[in-house]
C-alpha cells in the first residue's frame, strides 16, 4: 500500500514534467489542465480538523500541527506515517488510490481521523 502512494507521487511529478514541457514550447493548452488538488487538515487542541475529509483521487493533503505539543499522523494500516511534527510542523501525503484511510496520532492515540478518497 505504501508503494501505491509513492507511485502516485511519481505520476504527479511526471504530469508536472509534461505540463512544463508543454509550456516550454508555448502550447497554451497545457495551462487548461486543472492544478493538482490540495487540502488542509489542522491539528488544534489534540484534534484533527476536519476529523473526516472526502477528496478526489490525486489530492494532496497537508496536516499542520498548531498545538504546543508534538503530534504524528499515522494511518492504522501503515499506508502513510509522518515523522513527529513539532509546533507548526507539516506533513503531506498524496492520495492516488480510492479507499478509506483511518489515521491517528501515535503519541496520543485518542486522536483519530479519516480520509475518504473517491
Amino acid at each position, binding site marked *: 500500500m505504501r508503494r501505491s502512494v509513492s507511485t502516485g507521487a511519481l505520476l504527479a511529478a511526471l504530469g508536472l514534467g509534461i505540463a512544463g514541457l508543454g509550456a516550454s514550447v508555448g502550447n497554451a493548452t497545457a495551462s487548461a489542465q486543472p492544478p493538482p488538488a490540495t487540502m488542509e487538515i489542522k491539528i488544534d*487542541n*489534540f*484534534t484533527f480538523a476536519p476529523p473526516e475529509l472526502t477528496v478526489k483521487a490525486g489530492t494532496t493533503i497537508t496536516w499542520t500541527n498548531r*498545538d*504546543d*505539543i*508534538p503530534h*504524528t499522523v499515522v494511518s*492504522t494500516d501503515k499506508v502513510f506515517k509522518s*515523522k*513527529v511534527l*513539532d*509546533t507548526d510542523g507539516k506533513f503531506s501525503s498524496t492520495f492516488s488510490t480510492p479507499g478509506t484511510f*483511518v*489515521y*491517528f496520532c*501515535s*503519541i*496520543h*492515540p*485518542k486522536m*483519530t481521523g479519516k480520509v475518504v478518497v473517491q
Partner: protein
Amino acid sequence: MSEKKKDELLHDHNDDGVDRRGFLKCMAWAGTGAFFVMQGGVLKSYSLSKMPRLGPRSAGELSFVQISDSHMGFNKAANPDVVGTLKAAVDKINGLPTPPEFMLHTGDISHLSKPEEFDTVDQILKSASAKTVFFVPGEHDVLDDEGKAYLERYGKGTKGAGWYSFDTKGVHFIGLVNVLNLKAGGLGTLGGEQLEWMKDDVKRLTHSTPIVVFAHIPLWSVYPEWGWGTEDSAQALSYLKKFGSVTVLNGHIHQTLQKVEGNVTFHTAASTAFPQPRPGTADSPGPMQVPADQLKSILGITDVTYVRGKHALAVVDSSLA
C-alpha cells in the same frame, strides 16, 4: 472523575487520617506540600508543618525521590525555561532533610527525543545528591524510532522495551513501559510480553514485600477521554493482589493526584516543566499557561520514604516554589 470523587469522601476511623474535612485541608495545602502515609491500605495525610509529630524516622529506612516530565527542549509560553525549573527541582532534592538514596524519573525526560535533550537532563541530574537514577520512558522519549535511542542510553540490563525490576532494603521496585505500540483510539499499553514478565517477576516474592510500581502513563483510569489511563493496567494490578502494600507512581498528567483502592495507593507526580489542566476542565490536555510568579508553585518533586516493618510508604509532594 467519579472514582476521584469517591476518594475525596474516604472515611478513616483511626482519627488521624483522611476524612472529608481532612481532604479539604489537603486541598488548602496544595502548592505548599503535603505528606501522605499509607498504612494497611488507608491513606493518612498530614501537613508538612505537622511532620515533626510523626516522630523520628527509624533506622533502615529507605528514602527516594520521584521526578517526572522534564520535557527538556520545550520552549513555549507555558515554561520558556525548563532547564531552570529542572535545576530548581534538583536544588529541592538536595535540600531534603533525609538525602534520598536514588531517584526515579517517570518519563518524558525529553520533549522531542533529541540526544542533546537527554544530554542536558543527564548533566543537570548529575548535580543531585542522589547519584543513581532509574528511568522509564514517556511517549516523548520514544518518538520516531520506537524507543531505540532511549534503550541505548537508559536500557542497560532491562528487558523488552526497557522494563525491569530491582530490590533494595526489602522493597521490590518494578519499572514498566506503557508508551509504545499504542493503538488508534486507545490508551497506554503494557502488552502481553511485559505482562507475562511481570507475572513471573512477582511470583517468588512473599506477600509482605512492599511493592513500588512506576510507569509514565497512569496505571489507573484518571481520565480516559484524554488518554490518561492504561488499557491493560487491570491485568498488571491483578498480579499484585496478594501483596499487603503496593504503591503505584506515575507521571504524564503533570499534576499530583492520589487514589487508594484496597491495598494499592496510586500517585501521580507533578512535572518539573509545565502544568496541565485538571481532568476535563479544558478542551484538551496540553501545556497550561499560568502567571509566571505562580509557575513554580505547581511544578514539583515527590519524596517517598519506606519504614521497615511498618509496611508503609510515605509519599510527600513538594512544589518548587
